[in-house]
């Protein structure tokens, strides 16, 4: 599925300084029953966000107007657990385009890259710095520059570079997906398949 191109993103950020945020929290299993990709943003962090009577939990960050923006900043080991791509969809559909953490779970990171959410892995020190700055000033902005592979805290000017596979970077900046690439080499795949007769 095509998504918006990603170039330079300057935005305030929503802090979630919790470690090991698993995909069951990002989107609980009971919301995986859709046969189309619609409405996942409404259920992002459902059980942390709403009480069982559907009223919003006041102390959860998504219910706090002080924080907003297209960047979600999470604690270490973000996105562990279930492979559900719905977790990445929920984040995208809610309006985030970038997740910052000091460590990402593998499948979640792949899923994000496949659907146009940029996972930015920073050092633990930089992450702490980001949390502190947002704490000090909730409307502080971050600039994520994909072409240069840098992330900067605008108020302090401190920045760090991040890694991304060059192929994936190309896809993100152009809004391409992998299937387009694979369909182009279908004949090679067919030839290969003949030798693996399982």
């Amino acid at each position, binding site marked *: 599925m095509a998504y918006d191109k990603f170039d330079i993103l300057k935005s305030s950020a929503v802090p979630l300084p*919790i470690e090991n945020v698993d995909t069951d*929290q990002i989107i609980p299993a*009971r919301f995986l*029953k859709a046969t189309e990709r619609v409405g996942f943003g409404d259920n992002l962090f459902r059980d942390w966000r709403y009480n*069982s009577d559907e009223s919003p939990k006041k102390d959860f960050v998504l219910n706090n107007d002080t924080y907003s923006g297209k960047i979600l900043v999470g604690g270490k080991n973000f996105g562990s657990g279930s492979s559900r791509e719905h977790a990445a969809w929920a984040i995208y559909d809610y309006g985030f385009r970038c997740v910052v953490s000091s460590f990402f779970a593998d*499948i979640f990171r792949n899923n994000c890259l496949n659907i146009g959410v940029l996972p930015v892995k920073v050092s633990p020190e930089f992450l702490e710095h980001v949390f502190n700055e947002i704490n000090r000033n909730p409307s502080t902005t971050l600039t994520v520059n994909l072409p240069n592979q840098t992330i900067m805290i605008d108020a302090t000017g401190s920045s760090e570079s991040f890694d991304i596979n060059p192929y994936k970077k190309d896809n993100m900046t152009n809004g391409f997906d992998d299937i387009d690439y694979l369909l182009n080499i279908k004949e090679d795949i067919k030839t290969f398949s003949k030798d*693996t007769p399982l």
Partner: protein
Amino acid sequence: MKKTLFDKVWDGHVVQQIDRGPDVLFIDRHMVHEVTSPVAFLGLKNRKIKVLYPERTFATADHNTPTINQHLPVQDPLSAKQLEALENNAKEHGISFWGLGHEKNGIVHVVGPEYGITLPGATIVCGDSHTSTHGAFGAIAFGIGTSEVEMVLSTQCILQPKPKKMRITINGELQMGVTPKDVALFIISKLTTSGATGHFVEYAGDVFTNMTMEGRMTVCNLSIEMGARGGMIAPDEKTFHYIKDREFTPKGTDWDKAMDYWQDLYTDEGASFDEEYFFNGSEIEPMITFGTNPGMGIGISKNIPDAANVEGGSATYEKSLNYMGYNEGETMIGKEIDFVFLGSCTNGRIEDFRAFTEMVKGRKKAANVTAWLVPGSHKVEKAIEEEGLLDILKESGFELREPGCSACLAMNDDKVPVGKYAVSTSNRNFEGRQGPGSRTLLASPIMAAAAAVTGKVTDPRTLIN
């Protein structure tokens, strides 16, 4: 060049290496289920393409299915719609489909090995993270997201950078009452839930060579819980014996040809790994988790660690203990429980039911416990009856449900209520995993059995005669 088991299988499946990009990896066998596939099939429709190799694709319904009255129409309209979508998609694309009520129906990672879809040296993917289970046969098997399901359906390939390699070696004799589940929970407690991220793990040493195929599946299944892409064990005589003559395994001269390839599937002496760990099997105790991720596990005789002694933020740790209603320094033994769940792709196979039954035999289910015994497949269900286990279970006050994922992820009605405690043989104790507000203690089938008959957390060794 000296190669690891993982190298041999991976390198043999690379169709193309993209310059400074991921590898194009050919996928031998692809399993799909109702929850992570509908949007992928929709993608194919939008692109106006068909599944490239339907004969390499297998579909089963498991995540969303009820575990009682499977012969009746599914009550939940959303679940029913997903099940119907899978059936229609399978039909449209000519894929084998084992829906609700089909004799081969069951949890995707249980039926794969049962019917010989899982083979040594194969690449296997599925839109479910516990696809790592199939690594027990020496396959490279890993979970993928829905975009990747669409990729494999349309091109039988996936784009993946080659993961790093880790080896975990455990030698020594396991103590009485220590099962493969305990070995896995022990490893995760040592490495933490992110300790193997970015790596593919090979398990080596006599603890694993001595394990049955079912035990190996339990271990490989849980690889993902320490962040690994997958786990694998070199195939041996036990492996070949297990798969021989199953429905989808090669036969005749094809078998001989395959054996030539399979017999070369081991790590060469001197091949190198990015990381290595060594543990002593005799030090492992029956394990139980006390927190909200699978790395928060302890030997049953130990106390819940102090926040000061755990790696990472104490805020996260305290949040977790609060959720569970536990305190630092407490023992788990004697904690009251409400539910017991025996099942899932981790421990829903026949050996697990045998072990559970052996433990409850001659005892009665505790009155305060609701027990859900859910076989991993119809084949397992049938074996439970035929081996006479069902009679023993009934005698002890237990009932058997119909196969499916059930309370492992609680997408159907098998939900643990708010605040209640469940001793579960499944794989995840995340907040709300078994139902909103549920509290999960992960353990082996015999630890679950001991809890079911005593009504509280009990060291299973005290019940072994």
